[in-house]
């Protein structure tokens, strides 16, 4: 899952750093994730994981770090944590 999230961030996040070096809790907004980039990331995650983010998850913090995105995807896909 992490690798797929990294791939989405690399393609759509326009971050100032190499996504391979991202830590779990690194703040993506501080690393250059813009509002519009976060929308593109969200759409790409929905397509890749075949999920739909409900309105209560459409918050800044949902996309604030690699770990936060993984948590959200676990909730949406109903998968258990590794």
């Amino acid at each position, binding site marked *: 899952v992490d690798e797929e999230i990294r791939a989405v961030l690399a393609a759509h996040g326009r971050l100032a750093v190499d996504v391979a070096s991202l830590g779990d809790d690194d703040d993506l907004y501080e690393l250059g994730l813009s*509002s519009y980039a976060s929308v593109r990331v969200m759409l790409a995650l929905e397509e890749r994981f075949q999920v739909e983010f409900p*309105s209560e998850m*459409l*918050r800044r913090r949902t996309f604030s770090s690699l770990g936060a995105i993984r948590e959200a995807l676990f909730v949406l896909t109903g998968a258990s944590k590794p």
Partner: protein
Amino acid sequence: VSSDGLEEERAGFRDALLGARILLASDAKGVYLRSATFEAVVAGIDRLVSEAASEEVDDRLYLPLVVARSLLERSGFLASFPDLVGAIWGFLAGEASFAELLAALDSQGDWTSQLEATELALCPAGCHPLYPALRGVLHKERRVEAFGQAFRHEPSNDLARMLTFRQHEVVYVGSPQGAVAHRDGWVARAKSLLGGLGLDTEPVVASDPFFGRLGALLASQQEDEALKIELVANLAPRVAPMALASVNCHRDHFGRAFGIVRANDEPAHSACVGFGVERIALALFAAHGLEPRAWPGSVRERLGL
């Protein structure tokens, strides 16, 4: 008071303004003819804003209501608020299609199918035409007073949502710190200016009405970063709480979109304060009554009435 009661009170305020011919309804919902009485109040508000801005601004510009259609694309307005946009269409086909246009008119048919999109659109936010005009390298920070005009397509009988309205703005373009300081300084100055007119307002962290499901994410981000602060007057029950001014920090959004760069090659940051002069006038009529001659002396004096 029941919500029906509030609705009635608000409709009553609109009827009272129309009855006193302070505003006159037109055939288009949300579009009004304005009396000299209304405009004298607006002129007074404009003068007060100009006075408050006079020490800091280095330029004063009067901005157009019509803009290049491409401005909507580059500013991001179309992607964020497609439902509010007004694009201008015209009859471009020439004489060959003229007969069809006339035939459609004669039969009371759909003549709009003869129209095509032009390169023009209505300006969606007061200060937007300013940014393309600032393209290039900024050798020092700029503070520009701008008389902006805006159109947003949201027809209603709510007087606070006129389809065209004016935004008297003070725009800052320069450094990130300067933009934040501009926002923070103007929250207090705008509150004080409005307070001097007997209008009590509260600063409220707000978001723009971004469109749809994706818009919810953008609005959440705008609120988390307190990028938009509105000065909201509560004039219940005659009018619903409404924002009379808003202070916005754009970060480097317009600097990037319109190629405004600082001497250090970084995109410029910007911020603006916008006074909704029609709304402030409405709030004055709601707070002090329909007859400006009877308003408190200090308010009349400040407005030059």
